[in-house]
Each structure stands twice: as C-alpha cells, then as structure tokens.
C-alpha cells in the first residue's frame, strides 16, 4: 500500500480527537503515582535514615537549639528529588509518603520544597519534683512556684506537688533553705541486653546512630545511652529478641 | 576544369585533417593545418582556370580592339589564393611560436601530456 496511513488519516479527521483538554478538564494522577512528597514531622523520630538512603541527597536536616529542646526541620527539595521513594520504604515510622500531586511547577524553585520541623524537648521533660525528708515545711517553695503547683500544710506537715502543672522551672529548688527539693528522673527506659545474646552484632550494624558496640571475641555488649535515640530498630533486628527498653 | 585538380585538393584536405586529428606531436598538427591550407589553395586556383586562356596581363589597347583575340584565365581566384597563402603562412608562424613557448613551458609537445585544462 503506497500510503499506509491514508485511510487512518481520513478516518481520524471525522472522529473526535483524543486530546484531553488539560487545563479545563482536571487530570488526576493514577493511584499510587509518586508525586509531591508529604512529611509528617510528628511521626518522625529524627533517625536520619531517609537522608542516608536518598541518592540525590535531596533531604536536608537542620537542628537548631530552641529553648525547650532542639528544633529539627527536615527539608525535602522536590527540584532535586528523583521520586524513587526509597526514603518512604526506609522510614521506620512511615513519616514520609508520596502524594499524587504532580503540579510541581513554580516560578520560584524555593516553594517546591516540603519542609517539616519538630521541637524535641531535652531529657528533663518527664522528670518529677520530689521533696527530701529534711523538709521543715517553711512553705517558701509554694509561695515562689509561678504555677502554684506546690501545696504545703504546716499543720499536718504534708507537702505535695501537682506534676501536670509543674513546668520544672527549678525556682523552688533554689529557694528551699534546706535544699531538700530535687528533680528525679523517673527510672528511664534504657536499652538493655538480655543474657541469651549471641553477640551477632546485627543490632550494632543497624543502629543509625552506631550507639551499640559489640565485641564478639570477649563477648562484650555495651550501649552509649546518650547517643541512643530509642528508635527501636535494633530491637526489631535482634534475632534472639533479647534487647528491650527498661 | 581539370578534374584531377579537384581530386588532389580534396585528397590533400582530408590528409591534412587526418594528420591534425590523429598525430600527437604538435608540430605535426601544425603541418597538418598547412596541408589543409594548401589543399584549399590548390582548389581555389584550379577554380579560375579556363583551358587555353593566357595570363590576364594586357595593355589597354588590347582590350579596345575587340576581346576575341585574347582569352584570359579568371584573375579573381588567383588574387584569393594570394591572400589565402599569406594567411596560411601567418597561421603556421603563430602556431609554431605557440609550440616553441609550450615546449619551453612543458618540455614536451605531445598532445597527451599537455592537458591541463579539462573537465
């Protein structure tokens, strides 16, 4: 046939064109289209796994100390992202997921960046005010407490504190003449290893912060509690399930 | 008009043309041209020949007393031949001067070598 497309061309002329009138007809991307990245700062435990796995290193984390703790902001630069969604798979707490919004067009590349930040209090967040036995019930602490969380009953020699109201400002501790007030940490959960540990070093390898060091020769296992962020990856990875937080 | 003159002159012309067309040496080509020229000259001379006629030299008196006594050969072709011979000589002179210059330039006068201008 000399012109293979001739009949097709003529037929096309009389049929409705197959163009999707995009601006008038809104077009939705398919079901799990990997579009704009959405980040939920609350779920994120700031383990940094996503930064580690992102090939174009599109994710940047900035940590600035803020009065209550540290402000951790994650920036996902869409103009540098390759939409491979590896970070989504690696995020243990599923804080990142890909939306179906493909309209990544803008005049200023800055607003193509997904930003999420979270303030993480320092450890004293869950410590409690306790009174020692040298207390003479002078009610100085109660008077100076800005939140009036402390009530002292000189008659029945009783001292109690309303922990929810207490903002742990530490003013009462200074004012107490007998220095018998102090903040005790509740017994913090710490990563401990059970005894049927076979020193397979899996936990050490998977720890994003490399807080666990295992010495197979001398069968020694220790953890650096300050580095540990209690992400719990080692607990899942341990074949013997002998790791736990106490 | 003697036929032999014609045959010889046509023969000379074809001989000359053959020589021009086939000989490789430039001098032979010029000689060929000369032969063609002589052929044509012979032909022109023999055109004007009236057998029995004398040379067309006469005094005015011969003419006045009746032309019967003198029967001349036609002078016009002879004049033509003169100029044609002169022209033939000039052609050969110029051609040979070209050949000398060409030899000085190319050190050869063979038609096959001197083929600078082609295509």
């Amino acid at each position: 046939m000399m012109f293979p497309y001739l009949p097709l061309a003529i037929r096309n002329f009389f049929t409705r064109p197959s163009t999707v009138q995009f601006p008038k007809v809104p077009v939705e991307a398919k079901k799990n289209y990997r579009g704009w990245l959405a980040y939920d700062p609350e779920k994120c435990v700031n383990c940094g796994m996503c930064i580690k796995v992102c090939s174009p290193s599109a994710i940047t984390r900035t940590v600035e100390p803020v009065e209550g703790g540290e402000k951790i902001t994650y920036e996902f630069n869409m103009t540098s992202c390759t939409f491979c969604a590896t970070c989504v798979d690696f995020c243990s707490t599923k804080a990142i997921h890909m939306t179906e919004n493909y309209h990544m067009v803008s005049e200023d590349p800055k607003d193509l960046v997904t930003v999420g930040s979270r303030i993480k209090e320092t450890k004293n967040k869950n410590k409690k005010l306790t009174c020692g036995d040298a207390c003479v019930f002078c009610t100085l602490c109660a008077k100076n407490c800005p939140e009036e969380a402390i009530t002292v009953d000189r008659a029945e020699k009783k001292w109690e504190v309303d922990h929810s109201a207490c903002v742990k400002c530490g003013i009462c501790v200074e004012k107490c003449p007998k220095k018998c007030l102090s903040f005790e940490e509740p017994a913090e959960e710490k990563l401990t290893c059970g005894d049927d540990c076979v020193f397979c070093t899996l936990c050490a390898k998977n720890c994003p912060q490399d807080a666990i060091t295992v010495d197979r020769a001398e069968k020694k296992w220790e953890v650096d509690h300050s580095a540990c962020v209690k992400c719990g990856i080692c607990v899942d990875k341990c074949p013997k399930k002998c790791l736990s937080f106490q | 008009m003697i036929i032999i003159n014609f045959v010889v002159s046509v023969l000379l012309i074809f001989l000359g043309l053959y020589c021009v067309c086939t000989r490789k040496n430039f001098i032979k080509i010029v000689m060929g041209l000369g032969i063609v020229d002589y052929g044509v000259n012979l032909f022109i001379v023999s055109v004007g020949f009236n057998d029995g006629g004398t040379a067309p030299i006469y005094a005015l008196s011969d003419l006045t007393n009746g032309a019967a006594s003198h029967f001349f050969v036609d002078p016009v072709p002879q004049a033509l031949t003169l100029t044609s011979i002169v022209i033939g000589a000039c052609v050969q002179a110029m051609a040979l001067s070209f050949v000398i210059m060409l030899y000085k330039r190319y050190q050869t006068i063979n038609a096959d070598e001197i083929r600078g201008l082609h295509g």
Partner: protein
Amino acid sequence: MMYAHFPVIAVMGLFLGAFLVEIFGTKNKYIRNTIVMIFVLLAAVLTFALIKPVMVNGEIITYWMGSWEPVEGWAIGIGYEVDALGLFFGLFCAATFVLSAIYSFRYMDSDDHLGHYYTLFLMLCGGVLGLVFTGDLFNMFIMVEIITFASAALAAFRNYKFGALEAGFKYLVIGSVGSSMILFGVALIYLQTHTLNIAQIGNEMAGNLTPVTILALGLLIMGFSVKAFIFPFHTPVVDSYATAPAPISMMFSGTVNKIGVLGLIRVLYQMFRVMDKEAMQMTLVVIGMATMFIAVTCALAQHRLKRLLAYHSISQVGYVIMAIGLATPLGVTGGLFHAMNHTVFKGLLFLCAGAVFYAAGTTNMDKLGGLSKKMPLTCACFIVGAFAISGIPPFNGFASKWMIYLAAYNKGMETGNFLYIAATIVAVVTSVMTLASFIKVTQTVFFGQLKATNDYIRDVPLSMRIPMWIGSALCIFLGVGYNFVNKTILNPAMNAAFSAERYFDVMMGDPAAASAGTNYTINLSVWNPILWLVLFAIVFAAVAIAIITTKKTVGKVMLSGSDNQDPDGKYAVFFSGERSQYSHVVGSDMFWGFRKNFSKYFDVFHKFHNGNVNDYATYCVVGGIIITIIVFIFVR
C-alpha cells in the same frame, strides 16, 4: 549620401589605430591610451550615426571599395553593404569595444607589453566591425581570419598563467580548421556563381541548389558554427575564455561568438535562402537545444568562475541559434534581442569576474567567499547580471527569453511538430539551471563567510567600475524598455534578415528598392513592463509607508556594532552552539541531490572535454561531416 563612407572609415580607422599604437604606444602609457580611445570612440560614434539612416529611414547603405561599381548587374569590386541586420550586430559590438577599452586601461596596467595588447585589441575590433559591415564573402573570410588570430594571441596574452598558452594553441588549431572549411566553401560557391558578392550569390542561387552549392552550404555552416562555438566545437573556447584577461573574455563572449551567429544568419537567410525548408529549421533547433542543455549542465559542475561563465555564454548562444532556427518573425526577433542582451549581461558578468580577479587574485571559487562585505558594488553588479542572465522579470534576459518561448511554442502549435514543444521545455529548464549555477556563484564567491586570508581585499578602482555600472544600467533599461528597443532596432533588423531580395536589389545599385518587400511586425502588448514597474513601485511605496508608520516596536534592529564584536556573542552566526569557526559551504558541494542523479551524465561530459587537441579536432571534423550530411539529405 554622407553616410556611405562611415562604415569604411570606422573599420579602417580601427586598423590604422592598431598600427599607430604599435608605433607610438609602446613607451608611453598615456599616448597609447589616448590613441586607443580615439579610434574606438571614432568607430562607435560612426556606427551609432548610422542608426538614423539605416534603422529609422530604412535605407541600406552600399559602398564599393575603389568605386568599382557593379557592371550590368555583375559585382566586380568588394562592396560594403550595411543593412539593418548588420548594423544591429555592429551597434552592440561597438558599445562592447568602448566598455572593454575603458575597463582594460586600469585592469591591464600591471601587465607588460601593453603596446601589443592594444594592437591586438584594435585588430579584433576592426575585424568584428569589418565582418559586420561587409557585403563580400571573401572579405568576410578575411575578417574571420583576423578575429581568429587576434583572439588566439589575446587568449594567451598572459602566457605565465597556467594553461594560457595551451588554450591559445588549441583555439588557433580549431579556429584555423574552421576557417579552412569556410574558405573551401567560399571557393565552391565561387566555382558555381563566379562572384563573391553575398547579394549576388543569393540572387544566383535562389532557386537552383546544385550538389556543389549544398556542399558549400554544409561547409559554411560548419565553419561559422566553429566561430560561434556551438556544441561540438565549444571545447577549446571554454579554456581560452578562462585564461584570457577579463576585458578580452568580455569581447569574446560579447562579439566574437556573435560574429559566428551573424555569419550563420547571412549564410542561411540571405545567401542560400534555405531557411524556409522544414528540415533546416529542425536541424538548427536541435543544435540549439543540444548546446543549451549540455553547456549549462557542464557549467553547474565547474569550480572556476570564468569557466562557468564561458559555459554559460555557449548555452546562451544555443538559445540564439534555436531562436533563429525557428524562422518565424517573433523567433528571429527574440533571437537577435537575446544576442544583444547576452552581450550586455555576459559582458557585465565577465567584468565582475575580472574585478574579483583584480581584487582577490584568483577566480577559483573554492578559495573565495564572503566578498560582498569587501566589494559591495561589484557584488551588486554581479547580482544584476546574474538575475539578467537567468531571466528574472524586470531584467533584459527575461524579455528575450520570453519572446523565444512564445515563438517556439507558437511554431510548435502551428506546425504540430513535437520538436518545438520539446525545445520550449528544454529552454525553460536550461534557464532555471542557469539561475541555479549563478546562485551557486553568488553564494560561494560573494555571500558566504569571509576567509581570514581574504581580509585585504578592497573594491576595484573607479575606472573599472564605470563599465560595470553602464552594463547593469543597460541590463535594466533593455529589460524594461524593450518595446522601445524593439521598434527602433530589432524590427528593422528582423525584416532585413527576412527580405533577402531587397538586400540584392539595393546592392545592385537601386536604393529605392530599400523599402520594398513585406515588413513583419510583432505585437508584444501581452506583457508591457512599464505596467509592471508601476505596480512594483506602488507596492514598494506602500510597503515603505508600512515600515515607517509602525511605531518602533520592541523589535528594533540590533546592529552588530564593532564594540560587542566577540566572535561568539549574540551576533555570531548560529552554529548549533559551537564556536563559529570558518565553515563556508563551497560551490563544489552544492546541488548534491541534482549532481547525484546526473552523475552518469556528468562522467560522459567530463571525458568529452579531456584537453587533448586531437580529440577537439576530431569533434570538429565529425561535427562538420554530420552537418554536411544532414544538409545533403534534407535540404534538397
């Protein structure tokens, strides 16, 4: 009858000038130039003075050398007969002499032996004018010989150039073979008619064509075809055009090949009056077609500017031959007009080629490029010439080509013979190919990118530019005012060609017969160029207003000022991002598509023109034989 003496004075003046230059002129430049100028102008003025009596009043001037009047209707002496046809050729030849002389004063001043150059130049001019005015056959042969000598010597004038000597020699060999054939033909005619006067011969042989005269006819046609450089005989001429200095190649293409054409017309129309036979017309048309097509296709494959122009002048002569072969009033007028136009625009093109050679030192197209920035005026003249030769409407090439197409097609319609239709088709296609080759030249020589080494080029001095300006002005004037030209010069020339009887009666001493015979007139009202020019002018004016009125919108013209002249900046030529190094598309690799399809055809013609003298001579002889055979078979 004051006019009777003018033709002889003109011709003899030129010869006298030749000798005077030889005697006085060798030492001092100014004496030489003035002598040359005096005699050339004398000849031109005398020729132009003849227009009034011959063209306007329609008389035919006769002049008998040494007042040997014809006795009882029998021509004895050598007679000059200036009829409209002869004068027509004489006019534009004289004009070419003047332009060429002015041009060569400055062009040749770097050469030596200029005394000889101008002697030969004046001899050539004298020969041409002599042939144009003469009424005697042998005198015509003598003039042909003088022209052959002068042009052979002038072709090889710059003997240090490559191939000059070789071209001169070949031209001389082929030229003298041709002239010997003419002489042989003249002798045969004399054998039959015992007279040498063209008019008388025509009258004697009007009816009875004996085998002898037919052989003479064949030989004369062959001889004059060699002089007109038609297809089989064109080879040595192309070389000699290329090597000759520019004013001489202008003379060659302007006058020398027109002499061949005039000889053919005289032989066919006035002496043998054989053009009414169908076979003769067809042979001429076929020869014309062959010359046209072959010459233009060879031209497309050329690398040197002058060889390309030489091939084109051969193809344009092919047009003229074809037009004359049609033997219809419109056809002959077209042919004559095209001969004149060809002289004008081919002269202009050769002058431009000379200017390029003078300024750039070479005419090899592969080495030239981008000259339009350095030589704007020469480039403008060249474009005018290129448009004229390829027949773009407002120019003169179009006027004559249009006449030729119309004539060819009308003849085809009347006679129903398909050959004339084919002739029209070949003519149009050839004209487009001429345009193609000139586009190639303008692109390679003038427009492309300027080679760094060519930066020193400046435009040619004024005295070389004047002839070019005159030439382009003529191109435009002839193209536009061709109706006027037709009435004044062309029509009488065409009628002279057709009315051989009138030529004879006047020659034999009765001037009254000058106005006898039928005068054909052709009406060319179908296309009047003035109407067109008015249109073009109005449209151009309207467009100019449009340009001025529209406020300077954003798109103002950003001139490539010399300050931001960084070679790669905004104004550099887009070279897909690369640094714009020198990349000039040269002539030889243009028209790739066309040449690939014609590759077999081009090989044949590459071999045809192989530079061997013997082969050229064989082509000559074979061509002559073929023509004589055709004439024998058909014309009887």
